[in-house]
């Protein structure tokens, strides 16, 4: 790996830091570089301290790096906050309001230059230009990307931004910076996709036709992307009055025959748990994305966590089959979402996709091609598939537990469902035999579902020290393994995406016995560790837990492992 640079752009909410980040990403992508970028923001619209941090490499990168090579601090507060993250030969660019403190700090008059370019609001573009120049990005590439990006917003804005980028670019010409590198001209390695967009794309590819939601960070971005598709595709995206409505709208739509979803975060998920059970007992397919953030209650609304695993597995009164998936990257989030829609209909169950703020907002270069299924298998029957449509029973008992599913008002077969316990025809029943047969029937689906569950993925899976994780920490864990192995530590990892039904046998086999096993999780109690013990009896040797709301960095994992290294 000869290129591996981390750039951090920091400032207030409202200063356009996300735009800078997005543009840096686009320029790098165009050149054929890999990037991996994270966003950090507070729960406010203006002011405060936020940052965008992008790691640039000529090799695939899948986790953020904790050392910053180039810091562009648009405010003095954020300079103070983040300068200690600078690598020894790193450089900090600061604007008018801070004084240069040491040789690693250089002042660039972002605002003044911005005014020259057309207004103070272009300070972020000036910063982007400066930043790209220091990294050695070709000017024409920058200009192409910037003009492409701003074109939809009109000529004046485009021109001003082009002025700004040029002014920034020129302003740092004479600043020495050891991090400058030679840029490839390879063309894009893939698309620049964050987890939220990946899920929206997956939903589109999976033929989702209705998405109902109530705004909640970090899930709203998914709906925002979907909303953008709704002109060109048969897709209704509806903001509901609350999460209860959102979930029930999605269930109603699914019942009436379209694939549907909702997305929320913990507090909203709480409000959906009753509806989750409704989907369970009425056997209505449903996809729910829970984009986790730290709680309890409102917690840290714009931060990340992995602390809802056991909650979503057990959510809702009584028991009913469900899938729980936690993808590890945008590419996987896409795939898992397509799969979620498929499996929800195949087994007529709810599927919960667990992501988190980190993954939802983190941008990766996705090399994998994102493919829509050739054909959507709906697992739906109509009159023509029935001997006697008038005698259709929605909850016919079958060995697989899955009953032929007809849709209402699409034929003579009448579809009757209820959230009460029922007989095969869907009418309320309080009889002992109906109760037992319906519980058993629903439970029976688990056998089939388990066959559709993927085992955990091992990476150096036979190593002496095995890290075990789930979901979004995959990149950080894998990189920590690489680093430790490079340092002669025999470490490996095991990553779970499919968490429920839990692949107990595969897990037990992959974990085995007699070595150091450490769960790596972003919660306080080690939820995956508990689940593994419950399901396999295996107690892990320890846990590396982070619960401060910030993304997991590979070096933190390495630090956590060290005490266990003999």
């Amino acid at each position, binding site marked *: 790996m000869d290129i591996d640079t981390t750039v951090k752009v920091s400032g207030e909410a409202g200063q356009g830091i996300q735009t800078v980040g997005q543009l840096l990403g686009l320029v790098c992508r165009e050149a054929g570089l890999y990037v991996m970028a994270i966003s950090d923001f507070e729960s406010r619209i203006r002011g405060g301290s936020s940052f965008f941090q992008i790691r640039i490499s000529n090799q695939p990168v899948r986790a953020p790096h904790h050392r910053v090579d180039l810091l562009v601090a648009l405010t003095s507060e954020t300079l103070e906050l983040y300068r200690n993250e600078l690598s020894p030969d790193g450089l900090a660019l600061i604007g008018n309001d801070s004084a240069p403190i040491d040789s690693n700090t250089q002042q660039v008059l972002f605002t003044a230059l911005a005014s020259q370019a057309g207004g103070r609001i272009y300070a972020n573009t000036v910063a982007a230009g400066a930043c790209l120049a220091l990294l050695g990005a070709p000017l024409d590439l920058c200009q192409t990307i910037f003009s492409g990006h701003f074109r939809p917003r009109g000529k004046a804005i485009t021109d001003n931004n082009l002025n700004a980028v040029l002014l920034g670019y020129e302003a740092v010409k004479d600043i020495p910076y050891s991090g400058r590198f030679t840029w490839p001209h390879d063309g894009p390695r893939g698309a620049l996709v964050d987890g939220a967009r990946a899920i929206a794309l997956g939903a589109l590819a999976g033929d989702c036709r*209705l998405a109902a939601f109530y705004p909640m960070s970090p899930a709203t971005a998914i709906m925002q992307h979907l909303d953008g598709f709704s002109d060109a595709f048969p897709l209704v995206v509806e903001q509901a009055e609350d999460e209860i409505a959102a979930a029930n709208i999605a269930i109603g739509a699914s019942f009436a025959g379209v694939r549907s979803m909702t997305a929320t975060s913990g507090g909203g998920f709480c409000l959906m748990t009753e509806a989750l059970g409704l989907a369970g007992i009425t056997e209505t397919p449903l996809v729910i994305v829970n984009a986790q953030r730290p709680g309890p209650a409102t917690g840290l609304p714009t931060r990340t966590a992995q602390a809802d695993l056991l909650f979503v597995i057990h959510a809702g009164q009584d028991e009913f089959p469900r899938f729980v998936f936690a993808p590890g990257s945008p590419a996987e989030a896409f795939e898992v979402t397509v799969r979620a829609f498929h499996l929800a209909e195949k087994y007529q169950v709810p599927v919960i996709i667990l992501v988190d703020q980190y993954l939802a907002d983190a941008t990766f270069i996705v090399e994998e091609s994102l493919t829509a299924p050739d054909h959507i298998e709906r697992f739906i029957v109509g009159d023509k598939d029935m001997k006697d449509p008038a005698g259709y029973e929605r909850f016919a008992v079958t060995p697989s537990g899955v009953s032929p599913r007809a849709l209402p008002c699409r034929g003579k077969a009448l579809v009757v469902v209820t959230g009460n316990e029922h007989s095969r025809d869907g009418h309320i029943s309080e009889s002992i035999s109906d109760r037992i047969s319906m519980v058993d029937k629903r439970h029976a689906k688990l056998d089939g579902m388990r066959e559709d569950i993927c085992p955990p993925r091992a990476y150096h899976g036979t190593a002496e020290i095995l890290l075990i994780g789930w979901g979004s920490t995959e990149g950080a864990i894998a990189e920590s393994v690489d680093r430790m192995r490079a340092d002669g530590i025999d470490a490996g990892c095991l990553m779970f995406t499919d968490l429920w039904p839990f692949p107990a046998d595969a897990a037990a086999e992959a974990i085995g016995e007699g070595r150091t096993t450490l769960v790596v999780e972003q919660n306080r109690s080690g939820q995956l560790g508990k689940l593994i013990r419950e399901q396999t009896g295996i107690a892990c040797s320890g846990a590396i837990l982070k619960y401060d709301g910030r993304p997991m960095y590979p070096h933190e994992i390495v630090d956590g492992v060290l005490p266990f290294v003999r």
Partner: protein
Amino acid sequence: MVCIEDYESTFENKWCPGCGNFGILSALKDALVDLELAPEQLLVVSGIGQAAKTPHFLKCNAFHGLHGRALPLATGAKMANHELTIVVHSGDGDCYGEGGNHFIHAIRRNVDITVLVHNNRVYGLTKGQASPTSDLGMVTPVQHSGTVSAPLNPLSMALVAGAGFVARGFSGHGKHLSGLIRAAVSHRGFSLIDILQPCVSLNRVNTYEWYSKRVVDLSPEGYVPDDLGAAITLSRQGEDSIPLGILYQKEMPTFMDRMGAFDGRPLVAEPYDRQKRQTLLSQIG
């Protein structure tokens, strides 16, 4: 030709003998027959409660959902297939209590569904607690000194929330009610009929007799339901004389009109266009 028998369910009716719900059920069947709507064209959605059991006592497509959540369920179903004729059966607790928020917001959306609220002014299925429409001071098993909250006025609420069809019926006036249901189902947009329904087992205040003395049919009085202000005033009238009929009717763009259905076809009937999706997926940057 649709006939009453088409709607007869063999499922045992579980309401109390003499319950006002029977009048509503038969008025509904009459209306559906008059509308020439076959069971397979109808989806009945309901929450939980005595009222919400209605779809089981009828032959039709049915989603008997959660307490309070009939309206979002119906909304979702309508969005998925706007060709469905959807009738919601809900109770005063279901629709105005647990489901109060959905009530307001479903009206704002103007989804083309018909909502029949069996307003017995009590929680029937849970054995007699106060509902949002219970009289102030009504004594119940959990309100032994009487309720202390003022009753909610569902018609006024619906009117100021912007509903385009707001009516009141009485389960004891079957023919009249059946006409209202016909009109409501025919109305393009959200339609509400709040139906006065005696609960013979649990509500000793608002009985058949109590209502019979008070209800007044609006139509012979020459009332024309096209003035929102007048409708609101009428809806606020004291309980000595309770107007029955359509208080207000106005056609307005529905959710589907405003949304612009994708190409006129219901979502559920759209083909899966793989090519188009793949093109988008291949072009993302």
